């Protein structure tokens, strides 16, 4: 009987809800907001002279003006990137000297002194230690410079203005203006760029920003681009232009990345992501003097060290795998040689080779170790002199010497160009993949973000290789 009553009441309430109509909820919400505004205006007094500072308005007029808005933006981005690349050179080489050239042999000597078997010291020191050390040496300095600079700009309040200026370009690609910021952050580190997408509160645009962040050339990939461009592109033109040519090539790749970012943002928003909810709003907060020390502290702790730690965690097993595949033998050939031979055909189709593909497979955890791995594997399979032994990654001090090894491995200008393209267009590193999963909590989008760029990479390098060979 009672139950019956409740059923009846529920049914009645539904009917009544329907009778009231659709405007009810809106009017209620509007009423609440209006009442709140009334209460505020009646009870809060404020000093009107200080509202919206004059200086703010002046800065805003300049940084969003037709004439100055874009030049200022590009100048600041160029300065930040320049400071990062130039400024990290010295600490990076210092770290490399200490960790790789000094400490690594010391460790090896120590290991042999205490009678550690060769395979254990190889596995631990040549494999794991070397990969971790490499990642730290390459990754730490640029991040420690880039993130604080970026965070200072953010803290000052300039970055939202960049999003404001650029939004209409991003709107055409179905994305949010704030993606300009997460993209720039990606130039430092894709994992950090993915975390930075939290500033985009619209679900669809945030997913777009996450999936396309990988098209920003991160600092793990800049050195690869620079080395290869110097060796091959620089050498392809008269020597007086070589510096300019290789620089143009690297910047060209970065700009191509931006193009792919726009293109795939557009494609994603029109296809797989079209059903996701999309909203837009962009608050332009007042400027304020950055809290310098606090910013430095938090950006180093929150961004740099967390990302670095994740990278180290992933690099360690990669180092182990690299050492193992080069030192475990099946028949007369090492596992590495077997894999390289079986990948050579596919690699050739893409204008690459088996060594590069294997290097990209084992170096998924960290793009920083791609070149050292390629060098080690090339020496391993070609049997030329040089290198430090099977499974021991190395790098050479002069670009020329690196070029000699690569050319001995059968590299041509096409290989170099396609390697640069493939370095831009391949799956994100495992740190980034893990971060994407943490941010989206979705296997589906993590898979899309992982597989989509590599398919694009296969297609682009394949097309370049075929067209190159025809002419």
């Amino acid at each position: 009987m009672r139950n019956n009553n409740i059923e009846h009441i529920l049914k009645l309430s539904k009917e009544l809800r329907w009778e009231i109509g659709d405007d009810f909820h809106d009017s209620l919400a509007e009423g609440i907001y209006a009442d709140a505004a009334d209460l505020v205006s009646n009870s809060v007094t404020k000093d009107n002279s200080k509202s919206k500072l004059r200086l703010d308005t002046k800065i805003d007029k300049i940084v969003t003006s037709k004439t100055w808005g874009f030049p200022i933006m590009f100048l600041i981005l160029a300065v930040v990137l320049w400071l990062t690349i130039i400024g990290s050179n010295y600490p990076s080489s210092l770290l490399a000297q200490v960790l790789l050239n000094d400490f690594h042999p010391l460790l090896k000597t120590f290991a042999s002194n205490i009678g550690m078997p060769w395979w254990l010291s190889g596995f631990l020191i040549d494999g794991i230690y070397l990969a971790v050390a490499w990642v730290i040496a390459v990754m730490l300095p640029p991040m420690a410079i880039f993130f604080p600079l970026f965070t200072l700009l953010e803290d000052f309040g300039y970055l939202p203005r960049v999003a404001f200026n650029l939004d209409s370009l991003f709107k055409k690609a179905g994305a949010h203006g704030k993606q300009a910021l997460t993209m720039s952050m990606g130039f430092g580190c894709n994992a950090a760029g993915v975390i930075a997408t939290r500033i985009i509160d619209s679900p669809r645009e945030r997913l777009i920003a996450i999936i396309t962040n990988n098209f920003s050339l991160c600092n793990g990939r800049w050195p690869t681009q620079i080395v290869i461009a110097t060796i091959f592109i620089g050498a392809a033109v008269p020597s007086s232009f070589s510096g300019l040519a290789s620089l143009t090539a690297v910047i060209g790749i970065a700009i191509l990345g931006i193009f792919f970012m726009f293109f795939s943002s557009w494609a994603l928003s029109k296809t797989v992501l079209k059903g996701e909810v999309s909203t837009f709003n962009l608050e332009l907060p007042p400027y304020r003097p950055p809290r310098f020390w606090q910013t430095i502290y938090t950006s180093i702790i929150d961004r740099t060290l967390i990302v670095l730690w994740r990278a180290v965690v992933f690099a360690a097993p990669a180092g182990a795998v690299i050492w193992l595949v080069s030192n475990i033998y099946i028949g007369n050939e090492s596992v590495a040689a077997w894999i390289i031979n079986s990948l050579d055909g596919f690699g050739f189709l893409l204008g690459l080779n088996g060594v590069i593909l294997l290097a990209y497979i084992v170096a998924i955890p960290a793009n920083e170790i791609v070149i050292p791995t390629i060098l080690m594997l090339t020496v391993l399979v070609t049997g030329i002199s040089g290198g430090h032994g099977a499974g021991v990654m190395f790098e050479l001090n002069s670009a020329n010497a690196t070029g000699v090894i690569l050319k001995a491995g059968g590299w041509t200008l096409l290989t170099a160009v396609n390697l640069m393209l493939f370095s831009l267009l391949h799956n994100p590193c495992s740190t980034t993949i893990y971060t994407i999963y943490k941010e989206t909590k979705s296997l589906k989008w993590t898979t899309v973000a992982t597989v989509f760029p590599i398919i694009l990479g296969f297609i682009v390098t394949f097309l370049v290789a075929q067209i190159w060979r025809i002419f």
Partner: protein
Amino acid sequence: MVTYNPLNALLIFLIIIVLVYLLFRPKKGWFWIVKNNYNTNEKTVVEDILKLLYHSENDGEIVTKSELTSKLNFKTNLIQNSIEKMISNHFIEVENEKIKLTNNGRAYALRIIRVHRLWEKFLAEKTGYDKLEWHERAEQKEHQLNTEEANLLAAQLGEPKFDPHGDPIPSQSGKMAILNGVPLSSLPIYTIGKIVHIEDEPEVAYKQILAENIHIGSHIKVLENNATRVTFYAEGEEFKLSPKVAENLTIDVIEKHHLDENKLVRLTNLKEQETATIIGLSKESRGESRRRLLDLGFVKGAKISIDLINPLKEPTAYLIKETSIALRNNQASNILIKKD
């Protein structure tokens, strides 16, 4: 790789691309056609026939069997079978080729219409699909949801009375609000009214209405109505439509009105240095987007002015409650203001 030749490789690649395109291109891709055919069963056909009969009877038209086959895009024998089945289930009665709905049939048709309109409402409120896709998606979904699921959906959406186009949604017990209004094309000049319904078929006309940025719920004033053109004023802007397209807008005529419609304009009409008071949000602002605007303070009575013009024209930053918030033009056109 003995036969390798870059030209062959390119050719094979091209063939694969063409194949993928033919299989998966939107709507006409073979994969979708096969999938649709697979999904088209007797239930779909029966339900589509019932819907067609219901709408025709409401318009006072009587449908014959041959008309059915020409109006619906199914195979003739499939329709024939469905009609026989519907007769045996007492959904329809046939007299000299003329088909009539029974009470059972009407109730069934109403259930399908309820699901269709609820789903359109859902797409509008909770997803990001483009307006142009709502109808097609609801056409699919109406055959998939059962009554129970439809009731759950309705509860989740707050028992809505109208779908986003202004069509009334039948309630659980079959009650339906009445849509008052006449086609825009039939109104004499200087008539004042409110857009209460925008028809989404045929798609060509609907696309034009969307391109003109005409909003449901807008107050309008007819300025010109002749054989070639219907012009009306709404929210600070003038809209011109062909009479054929104007037929698809339903207007509820307002005899006496207290709002001076000349002063009510869209936020996009605000100029630099001007200030205005917000009157409200248009019905076209929906779901998450609408709530976000309300949260940011775009509510009735709030003062608003322009803070910054963008170097690329869009978005514009507005000063509201002493905060600078940038909005895109499509959002700003959904905010109605009265200039001070």
